[in-house]
């Protein structure tokens, strides 16, 4: 219960500041005021605080979201049941007023505002609503108590009655249990009988009274150990009508549902499906279902229990006898139910009779009650909810990722506050499934993929993950990862998707870093050409992919590199290598591959070069291009080449042959070019061109 010392909170929703001001001034002495200048803001505030707002003053005509739109959303979320709404409007037309009341609005105050009237109406409304909440919780407690007392009373009464029959009170308990079990089975299989949990509770209670008429039967007949004579049997049969008669004579509660059922059961629990029962010879479904069930339960229990006139039969024998029609005729649907439960009937009865106090499913019963009257939460629940909200809000505020929650019923997404800084989007977006409303933050494809992930999830596998590009607040596109979990409402029959929550985190740096490292691994760090490993991979891929497209592999290195290094230092050597690498890059096309495969050895793979002439021309050109002076130092290169596919179908073979050709160049005085030839003799061209 709210403390009297704390001020109650009022939310004022109006698009004109002046109007909000006037109202706030009237009310702020006694209440804590929160303001919203449009419908969307109001909804946002409500979502965060619905436990603490005591009243809403709502304008009708506002841009974007009118007062009626706000009311509609409130209805969807059931807020209108706990938070009173008072409309403030200069609109006095009857249709607006009527429409407002249809939405469950509590009061209507028009402009100009009279401060006295406003204060009083607000006060009265708030008091009324808080009283209502108190009453509700009181009633709930009472209902529970009453139900338990009811059950107990009946238990006592019927035990007394049964006592006279020489049977123990166990019979009453067991009849109730068996009746309950059969009704549960009936409800599951045959919906047409419309068995709500409240009916099950009532009927099983009423079942306890089925033999109440026996009180009027003389004891000699009741407890006769032998078979009854025809006349005695006739007298015995009257107990059904007698019992019903007693219930008819009740001074009070004659038309209570419990009594109605009890009367049915008393009078007709000896009727038969084929009309040969007593006392009224009712046939088939003329017999109320309550009586039908108790009838079957009674027969079964009589069979498995000891009686003055018979011993107890086993569960199996009892079922057999009933199914064989030896004990009367029953509704075939009920027989089906009996068959279904017969496996565990024995066990169930034994278990449940240990705790006969709770003979109906309290949870189910309360659930149904609540469903009929709409969902309402007690104060304690609201308090807990408020606590969870506070925790959640704090945790999201200190995280620098954007969290989201999507509600399927209202088709709206709510983001954590961080969304404004990160993406400059509002915290609430309605009509989410309409792509336009994402304001271009992600592209159509990514959006479709996201929807796919969400709708392909299930209660068994509810989480999903995806990476995508999003546009940030500053316009840059970066990589983000969305991790989400769908939430399902699951009952015995089906499961329904109602919400999805998740996190959007920026993984751009990691992704970019990952890409960078990947590239790095492929390149030689000194020259920034491919390294041997990736060159081999690339070239192998190319060869496999283009079986009929010819190419040339060229290996070359700087002559006398070691001497060069020794004379001028390793650093200088490195510089020359870099220099040569640059020149190489400038002399190949985009489709070609250049790599550094050894200390001073380079590889070039030229694609789609078919003729030897062209190859030779190219190498000649290459040697000229590469043999430039570097810082006054002259250097030369040796070149070897092999041809695809003639000189080898694989990278390894091509490489080996190009190597051999290079070797030949070296042996032939360096500063020249050799083309590999498969029959052992190699063709070579002599290039003695001096460095430029």
């Amino acid at each position, binding site marked *: 219960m709210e403390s009297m010392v704390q001020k109650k909170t009022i939310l004022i929703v109006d698009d*004109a500041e002046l*109007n909000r*001001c006037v109202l706030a001034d009237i009310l702020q002495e006694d209440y804590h005021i929160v303001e919203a200048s449009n419908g969307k803001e109001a909804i946002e505030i409500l979502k965060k605080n619905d436990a603490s707002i005591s009243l809403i003053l709502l304008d009708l*005509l506002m841009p974007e979201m009118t007062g009626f739109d706000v009311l509609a959303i409130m209805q969807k979320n059931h807020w209108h049941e706990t938070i009173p709404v008072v409309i403030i409007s200069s609109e006095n037309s009857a249709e607006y007023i009527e429409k407002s009341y249809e939405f469950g609005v509590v009061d209507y105050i028009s402009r*100009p*505002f009279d401060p006295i009237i406003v204060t009083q109406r607000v006060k009265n409304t708030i008091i009324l609503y808080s009283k209502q909440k108190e009453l509700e919780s009181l009633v709930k407690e009472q209902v529970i108590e009453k139900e338990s007392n009811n059950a107990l009373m009946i238990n006592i009464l019927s035990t007394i009655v049964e006592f006279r029959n020489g049977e123990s009170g166990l019979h009453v308990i067991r009849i109730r249990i068996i009746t309950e079990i059969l009704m549960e089975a009936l409800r599951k299989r045959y919906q047409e009988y419309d068995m709500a949990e409240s009916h099950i509770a009532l009927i099983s209670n009423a079942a306890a009274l089925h033999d109440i008429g026996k009180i009027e039967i003389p004891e000699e007949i009741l407890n006769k150990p032998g078979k009854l004579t025809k006349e005695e049997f006739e007298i015995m049969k009257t107990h059904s009508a007698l019992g019903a008669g007693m219930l008819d004579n009740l001074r009070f509660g004659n038309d209570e549902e419990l009594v109605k059922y009890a009367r049915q059961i008393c009078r007709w629990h000896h009727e038969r499906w084929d009309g040969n029962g007593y006392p009224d010879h009712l046939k088939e479904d003329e017999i109320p279902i309550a009586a039908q069930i108790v009838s079957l339960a009674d027969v079964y229990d009589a069979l498995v229990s000891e009686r003055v006139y018979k011993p107890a039969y086993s569960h199996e024998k009892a079922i057999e006898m009933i199914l064989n029609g030896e004990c009367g005729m029953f509704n075939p649907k009920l027989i089906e139910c009996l068959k279904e439960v017969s496996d565990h009937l024995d066990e169930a009865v034994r278990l449940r009779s240990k705790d006969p106090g709770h003979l109906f499913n309290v949870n189910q019963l309360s659930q149904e009650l609540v469903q009929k009257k709409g969902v309402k939460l007690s104060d304690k629940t609201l308090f807990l909810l408020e606590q969870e909200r506070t925790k959640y809000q704090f945790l999201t505020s200190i995280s620098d990722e954007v969290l989201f929650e999507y509600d399927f019923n209202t088709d709206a997404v709510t983001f954590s506050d961080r969304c404004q800084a990160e993406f400059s989007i509002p915290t609430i977006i309605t009509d989410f499934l309409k792509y336009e409303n994402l304001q271009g933050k992600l592209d159509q494809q990514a959006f479709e993929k996201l929807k796919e992930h969400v709708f392909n999830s299930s209660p068994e596998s509810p989480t999903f993950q995806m990476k995508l590009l999003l546009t940030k607040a500053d316009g840059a596109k970066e990589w983000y990862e969305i991790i989400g979990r769908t939430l399902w409402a699951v009952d015995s029959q089906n499961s329904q998707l109602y919400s999805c929550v998740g996190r959007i985190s920026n993984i751009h740096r990691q992704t970019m870093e990952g890409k960078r490292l990947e590239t790095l691994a492929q390149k030689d760090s000194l020259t920034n050409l491919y390294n041997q490993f990736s060159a081999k991979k690339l070239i192998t891929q190319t060869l496999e992919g283009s079986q009929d497209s010819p190419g040339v592999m060229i290996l070359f290195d700087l002559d006398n590199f070691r001497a060069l290094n020794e004379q001028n230092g390793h650093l200088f050597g490195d510089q020359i290598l870099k220099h040569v690498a640059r020149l190489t890059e400038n002399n190949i096309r985009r489709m070609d591959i250049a790599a550094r495969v050894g200390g001073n050895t380079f590889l070039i793979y030229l694609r789609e070069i078919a003729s030897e002439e062209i190859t030779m021309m190219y190498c000649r050109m290459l040697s000229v291009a590469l043999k430039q002076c570097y810082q006054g130092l002259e250097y030369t290169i040796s070149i070897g080449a092999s041809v695809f596919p003639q000189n080898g179908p694989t990278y390894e073979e091509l490489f080996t042959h190009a190597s051999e050709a290079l070797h030949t160049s070296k042996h032939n005085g360096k500063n020249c070019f050799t083309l590999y030839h498969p029959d052992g003799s190699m063709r070579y061209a002599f290039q003695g061109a001096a460095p430029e």
Partner: protein
Amino acid sequence: MDLQNFYKAIGVNYNTVLRRLRREDLIEKYLKLFLKDQTFILLAEAKENGDYQQLFGAAHTIKGLALNLELSPLADAASSLTEYLRNDTPKDNTIVDEKYEKLMTEYNTIRNLLQ
């Protein structure tokens, strides 16, 4: 601001205003807010664009503001325009113009008096 004279000039009994809004400093505050209110700009825009939907909304809001501050002539003019624009029947542009002009006149009168 001499509030009493202001209200007298627009033909409103100052005592009524004082009774409703209770304090002079509050009345002054509200009038200042009123002068700052952007709805009049929205109204002019709507009129220029011929957007009668927006015009209706703006006029309605102005009616509310005027009622709150007991600016009766303005409230009446706004009400007249609002009612004319209310439903979907086709409008006679000259009549709209007329009512709009009346509203603006009243508004400008008030503005001048307050400054």
